[in-house]
């Protein structure tokens, strides 16, 4: 909750009153994570984009049911993930996104020293290990670590309880460790 931008609550309140510019601001604020959550759930870029778009519209329509003062992002991500999963099911895809290691580490910001230290082989081994896990294990690790979501947000996106996120993460890490080992820091 502490990581919430200070003006998010105001934007939500203004959007609830029908100020579409305030809602547009909220979309810009959260579209990055919304798109990635949709991508992981839908397994297809086009579907993810449409799902995120529809979810934002749905969320706007449902703003009247949103409890003021509670964090917006978990609530939104729950709607996004639902939309994306529905699309995946409609398309008959069995699983979500297959992640690939980038040959060159890139991004908006300079990569962290930890990222730079990961060799391409190790990245591929980790992604291969993730791919080998069962879907429940994989999705919880992807949400917690690759999407960098908190437990509450992960719980919302996966539609499970926070306690389940915790226990599933721990079990999934053990299983992944058994496949890829652990590099000593």
């Amino acid at each position, binding site marked *: 909750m502490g990581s919430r931008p200070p003006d998010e609550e105001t934007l939500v309140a203004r959007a*609830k*009153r*029908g100020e*579409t*510019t305030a*809602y*547009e601001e909220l*979309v*810009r604020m959260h*579209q*990055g994570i*919304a*798109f*990635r959550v949709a991508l992981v*759930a839908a397994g297809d870029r086009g579907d993810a984009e449409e799902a995120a*778009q529809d979810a*934002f*519209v749905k969320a*706007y*329509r*449902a*703003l*009247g*049911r949103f409890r003021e003062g509670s964090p917006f992002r978990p609530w939104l991500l729950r709607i996004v*993930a*639902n939309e994306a*999963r*529905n699309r995946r*099911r*409609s398309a008959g895809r069995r699983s979500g996104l297959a*992640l*690939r*290691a*980038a040959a060159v580490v890139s*991004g908006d910001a300079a*990569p*962290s020293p*930890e*990222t730079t230290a*990961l060799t391409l082989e*190790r*990245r591929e081994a*980790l992604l291969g290990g993730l791919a080998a896990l069962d879907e429940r294990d994989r*999705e919880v690790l992807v949400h917690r*670590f*690759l*999407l*960098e979501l908190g437990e509450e947000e992960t719980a919302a996106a*996966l*539609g*499970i*309880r926070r306690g*389940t996120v915790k226990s599933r993460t721990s079990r999934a*890490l053990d299983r*992944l460790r058994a496949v*890829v080992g*652990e*590099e*000593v*820091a």
Partner: protein
Amino acid sequence: MKGLERELAALSDAVEWPDVPDLAPVVAGRLGDAPRRPGLARRPLAIAVAVVLAAVLAVLAVPPARTAILDWLGIGGARIVRVDELPPLPLHQDLEVLGRPATLADARAQAGFRFADPPRDEPRPDEVRLAPGLRVSYLWRDGADARLIVTQFPGRVGDPALLKKLAGDATRIERFAIDGDTAVWLEGGPHVVLFVAPDGLIRDDHGWLAGNTLLVDRDGTTVRVEGALDRADAVDLVRAMPASPSSGG
């Protein structure tokens, strides 16, 4: 953070994520007709479902008129209606209709009707959901989806929790008894579950295509078991559900 967790966190930057599209302009363009107050959203789909249900109810109210309805069965608080054509509901589960996540203790304190505890000798449900006065549900999940749902709701006819199932022609419907309690088993073809909201409205997200279903009338509470399981397993599950000693009512 341990080594592997640190590596996974570092992996976030090392994955080939596609560029994030700018969704704001398109979304903003679609907000114009979006209602700002809850309860006013009525997409054509919702209207279609409401119309179908209204037609079903209207026909039921006049017994001789059976043009749209081939057959119907009542059990506890549920009505099973066989119709010529199912409404075009999307294939999805929206668990929100089952209420908010709650602890079993909360559910016992706030349900407002008697319901049975989760089945003995089964894994604990992954989630309990509560809609006070309307329904209590136990969910066992498979990833984000529910693979098995046991919902209990008051069985009085006319109760706001009244659940309706619209069954297509291909659905097999059998009425039988479990230890003297009336039960109905629905299997095979698709059937649609409609929940009526407390305000009497049916919203577009309040239906999904259901799996095999068992409905049992137990002492005025209807138990609905739904999922990919056969009739014998569903019956065993209901038999293993002890009545809650502290359920309010």
